[in-house]
């Protein structure tokens, strides 16, 4: 028998959030669902198309390759940013005047708007005037991200790592700071090495923040649009045309509302499923 006090009046405090979510997420989502089963020829005339657009998208070679690119990008970004962010957090000072300096420096990339990040890296990496391109070419490596798919991918991954590793680092740092000193003292008494302290104290204690970091970085990288759009515009060719970029091309470029709506829903479902999967896997054996 639970003896917890129940006061359901608190639910009213959440009501504004529900209303907000209804307007900025639910209503647009419903509209997208409605669009996905209809065909329009403009002038707000819609005709029933059934599941036709879904079939089109599911069998579209273009969708498959954009999805593959998107998954690959998220995989690469997670594989670099999570360990790197954790490593940076471990080396950051916990006491003294350098703490604030480090925190401010780490937050700087996070404060820059996405399109500005794209423009910055665009200018940095331009083959004729960019510093990055000059340095790489000076090393004898042929680098031109406007022509070479590998160079374009390299630039985008580098940009994302620069932009978002500090988020992972700051989250991990917050987690590290919250570990009580008693754990470290106990480890010292037992004569634990640095690796053992990391493996059996820090890593388990960071589980929650790492879950949040992985989820945030996965969702963000899977939905990346602005930076890539500014930097490469999906090119060269379609080498960096991720799902989001392809979606905008279909929805706003070609104004094919039906296929774009069907694609958005499939995209949304994939994100929902993968986020649920990550969360479930990382939270599994929580009490073990």
């Amino acid at each position, binding site marked *: 028998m639970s003896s917890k006090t129940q006061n359901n009046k608190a639910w009213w405090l959440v009501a504004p959030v529900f209303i907000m979510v209804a307007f900025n997420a639910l209503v647009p989502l419903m509209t997208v*669902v*409605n*669009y996905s089963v*209809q065909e329009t020829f403009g002038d707000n005339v819609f005709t029933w198309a059934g599941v036709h657009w879904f079939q089109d998208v599911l069998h579209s070679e273009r969708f498959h390759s954009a999805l593959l690119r998107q998954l690959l990008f998220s995989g690469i970004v997670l594989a670099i940013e999570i360990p790197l962010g954790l490593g940076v957090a471990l080396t950051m000072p916990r006491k003294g005047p350098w703490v604030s300096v480090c925190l401010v420096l780490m937050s700087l990339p996070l404060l820059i708007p996405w399109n500005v990040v794209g423009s910055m890296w665009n200018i940095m990496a331009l083959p004729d005037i960019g510093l990055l391109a000059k340095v790489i070419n000076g090393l004898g490596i042929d680098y031109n991200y406007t022509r070479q798919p590998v160079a374009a991918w390299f630039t985008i991954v580098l940009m994302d790592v620069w932009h978002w590793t500090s988020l992972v680092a700051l989250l991990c740092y917050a987690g590290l700071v919250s570990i009580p000193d008693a754990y470290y003292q106990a480890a010292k008494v037992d004569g634990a090495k640095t690796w053992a302290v990391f493996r059996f104290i820090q890593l388990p204690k960071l589980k929650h923040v790492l879950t949040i970091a992985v989820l945030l970085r996965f969702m963000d990288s899977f939905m990346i649009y602005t930076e890539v759009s500014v930097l490469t515009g999906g090119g060269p060719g379609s080498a960096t045309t991720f799902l989001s970029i392809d979606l905008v091309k279909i929805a706003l470029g070609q104004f094919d509302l039906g296929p774009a709506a069907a694609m958005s829903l499939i995209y949304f479902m994939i994100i929902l499923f993968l986020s649920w999967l990550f969360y479930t896997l990382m939270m599994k054996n929580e009490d073990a």
Partner: protein
Amino acid sequence: MQTTSIFDLSWMVWTWPTGIFFIAIFTSIAAMGALEYRSPGGAPRHGAFGLDTTRGDRLFISILGSCFIMLAWVGWASDEIWGGLVVCVLWAFAIFKWV
């Protein structure tokens, strides 16, 4: 100038099938809420796949799984969605029974 009421939802181009789709989802969530209020489901249980799930989790897995089943059905099985719906109901039953 033509004025429209804020309750004019014609821009959302509702259709009966999509309306029923959302009514079904909201009804299932509301029914789950009502059931939980009348007889709380309690702590998560340990089921198939080694997952610890509450009733709400099982409803979520049922709905999300059904979306994918439907996609696979219309993509590779048939234009008729009713067969897919049967598979979805079986899926939801299995989730609530074993997971």
